[in-house]
């Protein structure tokens, strides 16, 4: 990784719910930020700069909300930035914040991502008809379902594979008290019998719509060494983007995702992601995206992802647990979902994941987020040992 060493020294996360009517937007972000500061053993005054991220402003109806949130996040008198890179934004925001430390500009940076989806309806917020563009009026599910069908056609995966992921991630979420969805009696039959939204996606194959926020305090090596608890060192971080539509673009397994993974693996010295990582938190908003991203991220060969899922390898007790927190399928405050992935892997390598802690062998884990029409990617690798 370029620049100075950076570590996650504090992590905070709200409880995710359909509607957090007990807090304002400011209250929501502050709840996560305060927990991250407490975890880092810091106060607001210790923070040098604040980087906030979220998905489209239309989800809450507040334009450039960093302005209104400056006070709640203790940013007054400090530098503050607002990142927006579609669904990957939670990951991108973490990376932009980490770069402020890697560049040697700041010692302690607070980064926060949130979405308060109960303020609007995300599906319609994503479906505003624009002049001179074909109106999809389909939300994210309507956009991604055809790509999933293309994946099924290519790989020959049976129809129940997606449902397996839907069950696996919801069972995992039962061990995560902050997860939005807790469905104790979930099983394959319940998913299969839930209503069809966008073929092949049934209601329970799809992520919920959540209110929630995630926060992290990122520190320099000096700050990390003085931290009161274990820290997660950043071993690599990368972002890649490609345009939405052009001839020959592979939307099922995008090149930008492959390039981003290769970059971050090279920085972190990862040769075989399935063997080298202890776990991964990967942005899977629709169940089928687990097998699709298993292939795109090089955890198996093309066409083999669904077999890996079916074998149970990605379950919490499998050899490469994916989304032991319950993932996006169990909590989805859109703009924060990427940072939740990045923060959850930090908690895993710190040994702070509670009832969903995975066994640490290499001490390395992958955080991943994607957005737009599968075209924006952000990833980081964190570890419990200081990088060389």
């Amino acid at each position, binding site marked *: 990784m370029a620049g100075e060493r950076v570590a996650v020294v504090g992590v905070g996360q709200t409880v995710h719910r359909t509607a957090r009517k007990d807090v304002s937007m400011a209250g929501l972000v502050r709840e996560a930020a305060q927990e991250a500061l407490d975890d880092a053993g810091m106060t607001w005054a210790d923070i040098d700069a604040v980087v906030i991220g979220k998905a489209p402003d239309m989800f809450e109806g507040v334009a450039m909300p960093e*302005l209104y949130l400056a006070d709640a996040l203790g940013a007054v*008198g400090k530098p503050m930035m607002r990142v927006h890179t579609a669904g990957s934004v939670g990951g991108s925001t973490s990376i932009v914040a980490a770069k402020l430390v890697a560049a040697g500009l700041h010692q302690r940076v607070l980064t926060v991502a949130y979405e308060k989806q109960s303020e609007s309806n995300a599906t319609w917020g*994503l479906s505003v008809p624009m002049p001179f563009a074909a109106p999809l009026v389909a939300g994210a599910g309507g956009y991604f379902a055809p790509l999933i069908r293309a994946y099924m056609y290519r790989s020959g995966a049976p129809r129940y594979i997606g449902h397996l992921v839907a069950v696996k991630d919801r069972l995992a979420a039962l061990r995560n008290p902050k997860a939005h969805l807790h469905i104790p009696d979930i099983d394959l039959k319940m998913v299969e019998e839930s209503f069809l939204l966008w073929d092949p996606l049934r209601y329970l194959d799809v992520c919920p719509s959540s209110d929630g926020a995630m926060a992290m305090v990122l520190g320099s090596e000096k700050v990390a060494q003085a931290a009161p608890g274990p820290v997660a060192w950043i071993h690599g971080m990368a972002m890649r*983007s490609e345009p939405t539509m052009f001839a020959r673009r592979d939307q099922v397994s995008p090149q*930008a995702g492959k390039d981003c993974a290769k970059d971050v693996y090279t920085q972190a010295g990862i040769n075989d992601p399935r063997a080298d990582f202890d776990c991964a938190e990967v942005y899977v908003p629709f169940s089928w995206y687990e097998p699709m991203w298993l292939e795109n991220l090089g955890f198996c060969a093309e066409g083999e992802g669904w077999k890996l899922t079916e074998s149970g390898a990605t379950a919490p007790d499998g050899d490469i647990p994916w989304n032991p927190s319950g993932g996006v399928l169990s909590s989805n405050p859109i703009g924060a979902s990427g940072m939740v992935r990045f923060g959850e892997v930090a908690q895993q390598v710190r040994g702070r994941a509670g009832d969903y802690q995975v066994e640490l062998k290499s001490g390395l884990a992958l955080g991943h987020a994607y957005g737009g029409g599968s075209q924006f990617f952000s990833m980081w690798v964190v570890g419990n040992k200081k990088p060389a």
Partner: protein
Amino acid sequence: MRDVAVVSFACNAVARDASHNETEMIVPVLREAIEQSGIPRGDLGFVCSGSLDYLQGGPFAFVAGLDAVGAWPPVRESHVEMDAAWALYEAWVAIQTGEVDSALVYGFGKSTPGDLHEIMSLQLDPYYLLPLWPSMVDMAALQACAFLDSNGATEKDLAEVAARSQRNARGNPRAVRSADVAVEDLLKQPVTHHPLRDADIAPITDGAAAIVLAAGDLARKVTARPAWIRGIEHRIEAHAPGVRDLARSESAKAAGAAAGATSGNVDVAELHAQFSHEELILAEALGLDAAQTDINPSGGALAANPVMSAGLVRIGEIAQRITNGVADRGVAHAASGPCLQQNMVCVLEGE
């Protein structure tokens, strides 16, 4: 710190561009900035942009920008929902880490399809301020009143800023408002938002801007006289207008001091003032003296205000004057939010 310079600048601003969408509007600006930089498109290490969904009227305004960038093979890329001056800051940080040696930065926005002054009301605290629906101009007028009340300045002082802007803008081909006007004539205009007149308010503008940054030897290789970034800092202050002194800009002052704005001669300054009184508040905060510093020689945002790139344009205007040898050292400023809530100061120098 690595030495980083602005090696090219291109921009476009018109009163109304009804014949191009945002992507089409960006294409020629990016092409010009890249060609001028002498760095092949594929060699640019990082891309970062600034835009606002609410201007475009739909989510993900920045996504189609990738078509204009020609982001294939995939690029290292990011976006801020802020003026593109902050995109330049993010790109400058990326270069500081050593990850990349160059970056393309751009910003764009069309103000004409909607009502800019009402759209900007959506920036306000949604619980306590927005329900009152003060427009962007209403908020600015509050600040103008506070400024005039605090130090004995008058509407004539505001008109002097507006008149100088319009006169300076005559030399700026991108100005959408320029004329040889007299202060007395401007003062005959009706006051629309006490104490502001039309001439005190930035004109509605559609436009885009792009800058290429390069580090050290690369900058020297592609440019005879790179405009080096010697300091770049930004600060935000409290949101509620009632909890800060609107007559002054503490955040601009702090950013200017941290960037070293006044630790040398300032030949030229470009201030992102969308209202006449903002220029006076900013000049005071940055310690600029109109007798020694040429302030807003382009006419500033009062001459052309392409929202979401108007701050980046200020950096480009200063860089261009340094590269052309017109100036040795200059200060560029960008602002965001109601009543100058957030401010950036960038100090540029020639070799």
